[in-house]
Every structure is written in C-alpha cells, then in structure tokens.
C-alpha cells in the first residue's frame, strides 16, 4: 500500500511534482505512466525516502519509508539507471545489501537463481549487459521478500523471454496480495500487466483508475463501416456528438456512438453492410491522447526552441 497526500517536489523554480495524491492498493499491479520528465522517477525517489518532498507526505505500508525498521522487507525497489558499483560482483552486491537486514546467504543464492544470474553472479557488474543489470536490480528488489515493489522500467533492455518473465512475476506477486507499482514506456506491455493506471504529466495526475476505464475515458472508440452506400449512411448517422469521417471511398469511421446503433440505422434504411467493426482504442492511443499537452521533450522541428528552454528549466 502506497499513499501519497499532496506530494510536491520543487527544484528551484521548477516544480517537478505538483500536489500528487494517490493510493496504490495491495493485490494489484499499478502502472505508472507519463512522458519523460513528467516526475515519475522523482515520485518514486520520494516514496523511497531518497528525496525529501518539498511539501506533502507519502507513506508505504502505513509509515513513511524512513520509519520502517526493516525497510527491505517492506519495499523492494528497482530504481532508474544502475544503483550498483561496477567493480563489484553481483553476489557481493546482493550480499552487502542482505547483510544490513541480517538476511541469510541462502536467500541471496535464491534470488540469483530466480533472476537467472547464476552463471554470472561472481562476475563484475561493470561487464553486464543492460538486461543483466535489470535482472540484478530485480534480484535486489526481491531480496527482502517485500510486501511492496516499486519497479522503474523493469523490462528496459530485457529480451522477449525476460519481458515475459517480468510480466508473470509481477502478476504472481500481486496475486499473493503484494502491492506492485511499476513504470514503463512500453504501452502494449503495460496493458498486459497492469490492473490500474496512474498517468502523470508535468508533475500532475492526468488520469487514474482501472486500465479499461482510463482508456474509455479518452477514446470511446470508433466504429468502422464498409458499405456501398457510404454517403447515405453518413447522412443518416448525422446527430449531435457523432463524428463521421471517410478514410477511403466506401468506408466510414464513426465515433461517438456504438456499433449497435450504426447497425440499427443501416437496417432501418435497408442498407447493405460489408463490414461493421467496433474498434477499441489501445492503451497507446489513449496514452498519446492523454499526454498530448504534457509532453515535455517532443522530437519535432517546429517545437525545438520551445522544448529546449523547457529542458533547461527542468532541474
């Protein structure tokens, strides 16, 4: 369980996180989405007690992180970038973390096995690939068998098998009643993994709730119709809130209504339909639409000057 109340972080004049309030419930996987620079990592660092909020509070399992007597048992975290000394072996890194909580060496071996690092555990981390580094980070997060997991971009750099493994692991952890809070930029992956979403942009919450609800709130979806009498059908459908576009001759994209309604209208006019397919918006489409105005760093020639000044202002 993670609870944030009016959580705010300012760096000089820039407000990285603006008055966030949210609750991440146990037993679910909650996806944390937002463009680069939206404040995701800052929020995660504040949850972990690494950064001090300018104002507001955040608690994990009922207490501020710093007040837990066995923090690794409460929260396991994989934070952005590497948090490992490249000159140390994976096993030494995990052993040193385990020692602080009197966690047995057998548990270190266990998480090494689990994350598929057994073959390289004694090698120096500096030589690891991005994916190996991620596996080590996940091993460290699991070390204390924590009730809450915070994973920043866990599948970054993993091979397809690794991505699938993380998805199953995360689902299994939530099924055991743990709280899982993870960020990712891979929307298809997120839609397969998360139950709930928390979308932020420019440090503010844009959307929150169950995945399908978030998607539906943005794009109600569109209905694709193919008919020889496209022009007549478009005219018949014309009503308040219904938008009809024609991407190609004989095809209509209808939004603002349901496939049932389109079918009924066509039937009542005796029109022949070749295709009637409801098109559900994907998470990616919903995300793009949600964050359109909140994207900080857009790769676009006309906005180069603008994003540059914003980048300079951001920390």
């Amino acid at each position, binding site marked *: 369980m993670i609870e944030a109340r009016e959580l705010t972080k300012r760096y000089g004049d820039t407000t990285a996180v603006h008055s966030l309030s949210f609750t991440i419930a146990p037993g679910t996987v909650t996806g944390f989405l937002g463009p680069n620079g939206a404040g995701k990592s800052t929020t995660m660092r504040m949850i972990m007690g690494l950064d001090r909020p300018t104002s507001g509070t955040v608690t994990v399992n009922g207490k501020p992180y710093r007040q837990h007597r066995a923090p*690794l048992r409460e929260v396991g975290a994989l934070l952005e970038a590497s948090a490992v000394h490249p000159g140390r072996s994976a096993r030494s890194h995990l052993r040193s973390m385990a020692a602080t909580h009197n966690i047995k060496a057998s548990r270190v071996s266990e998480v090494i096995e689990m994350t598929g690092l057994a073959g390289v555990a004694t090698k120096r981390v500096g030589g690891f690939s991005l994916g190996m580094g991620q596996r080590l980070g996940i091993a460290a997060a699991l070390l204390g068998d924590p009730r809450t997991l915070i994973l920043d971009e866990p599948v970054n750099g993993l091979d397809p098998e690794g991505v699938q493994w993380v998805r199953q692991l995360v689902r299994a952890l939530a099924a055991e009643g743990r709280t899982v809070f993870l960020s990712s930029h891979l929307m298809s992956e997120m839609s397969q993994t998360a139950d709930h979403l928390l979308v932020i942009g420019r440090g503010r919450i844009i959307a929150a709730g169950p995945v399908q609800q978030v998607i539906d709130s943005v794009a109600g979806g569109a209905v694709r119709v193919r008919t020889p009498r496209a022009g007549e059908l478009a005219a018949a459908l014309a009503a308040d809130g219904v938008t009809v576009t024609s991407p190609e001759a004989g095809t209509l994209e209808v939004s603002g209504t349901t496939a049932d309604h389109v079918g009924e209208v066509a039937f009542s006019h005796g029109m022949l339909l070749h295709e009637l397919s409801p098109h559900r918006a994907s998470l990616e489409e919903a995300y793009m639409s949600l964050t359109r105005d909140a994207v900080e760093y857009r790769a676009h020639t006309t906005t180069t000057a603008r994003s540059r000044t914003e980048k300079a202002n951001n920390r």
Partner: protein
Amino acid sequence: MSTLTADPPTTSHAATPPAAAQVHSTFAGILRGEWIKLLSLRSTWWTLTSTATVITLVSLAAAASLNAMADDPALAPGIEQMHGAEVISSGFHFGMLTIAVLGALLITGEYATGLIRSTFAAVPTRIPVLAAKALTLVVLTAAVTLVSVTLSYFLTMPQLSQYDLVPALDDPGTWRVFGGTLYSLISAALFSLGVGTLLRSTAASLTAALTVLLLLPGILSFIRLDWVETIVSYLPLPASSALLTTGAVETQGAYLSTHASLIVMAAYAVVPIAAAAVTLHRRDA
C-alpha cells in the same frame, strides 16, 4: 489482464522467505554490509597494498640515506639525535596520500556509481551507514598501518643496526612515534571520508582533502607572515609532527604541543564527519 491471476505462474521467490522475526536492520548488520562492500572492491586492495608498499619503501630509503649522512661531516652528528622509530615512520606522508584516497572513495564511489541509492534504500536513516563506514575505515587503516610499520621495522633493521638505531620495543619513545603515526593516519582517513560525504564528487573531494592534508603546508611555507605561519602550524601535517617524534627533543617554536596536536588531529577527523552527518540526513540522495 486480471484473468491471468486465475492460474498464477509459480514463482520460487517465496520458497523460503526470510523469517520475519530475524529480518530487520541492525547496526551490526549494516557494519557487516559495509565490510563486504569494502573488501569486494579491487580499488580497496590497490590502495591498501600501495599504502603498505609506499610506507615501507620510504622507510627503507630513509634508512639507506643514513650512509650518506654518515659520510657528510656536517650531517654526521645529527644521526645521534635521531630515533630509529622516526626513520621507520618516515613514509607516513605517502601513507597519508593513499589512505586519504581510500577514505574519500569509500563514499564518493557510491555517489559516482549510483550505488548510494541502494545503500540508502536499505538504510534510510543514513547516519548508521556513515558510522559503519567510519568504523570499517578505522579498522582497515589500523591494520594497514600495523602491517606497514612491522614490515618497515624488520626490513630496515639490518641498516639501522649499523648505527645502533634499531628502536627498542621497551622504549616508550618508540611506541609514541608508532602510535602517533597510527593516530594521524586514522585522522587523515576520517577527514577524507567526511570531506567526501560533504562534496560527493570524487575529483572535488580528493582535491580538497589532499590540498589540506598534504599540499597547503608546502605552498604556504613561502609566506613569512606570522598569522599565516600560525595557520600552517594547525594544518594536519605540521600539527601531527609533534606526534611523530619521541618528544625527547623539544620541538621548535612553530609547532604545537603534544596535547594540542592530539586535539587538532582529532578535530580534523571529527568535524567534517559531524558536518556530513547533519547534511546527510537532509539532502536528496
């Protein structure tokens, strides 16, 4: 999505979960964690080996230079004034250099690599980490000083015995010099750890620590102003010199008394660490 939970994939992660009762953070555990971290880095072994090597080699060179002194009629009488322990400890300055590097790297290495986030996630109260680092550093510095002095003692023995300078182990003067060497090296190591914790960057910390520890006395020695000379006498190198002599010969005016030296060197160890402890709690990692 949630339908997946109908048949959750088995994970071995809870095969033998650490028993809740045993798993909690203790200072002994944090200390062991720091110890593992320190000994599992090659750079630790490099700095320790070079500290011992350099101290030993310099003492050998100092002992060998006795021959040259004896041949020079102007310097020869000086030999009688010397104490063998001072010859053995003459590699102290170089030892200070490498031990200061070790002290700074202990913390700046964590900031440079991002490891500090893992460390503070495990110990969010942070101060115990600094205390554990200080303690491991003291133990390691003591060990390497002991090894270096022992090595120097035996390796310089043939040469020193020619001048009847082999320090007697029942001579309090001998132990005073060896003790002073240890005390000053520990102080330098802790000073460097404190500066490293405050500045975080390896380059900045090493520059600052080594300037204060080793360079400033030499640079300022060209300035003959009273107040500058007073400041110089309080810098670590001059301040520790009273601790590196047998005390048999009264030290010259510019130097501090033994008591003052002990206090000044303790301050170099304690003040930056205390300042670091205060800021450590407040700053973002």
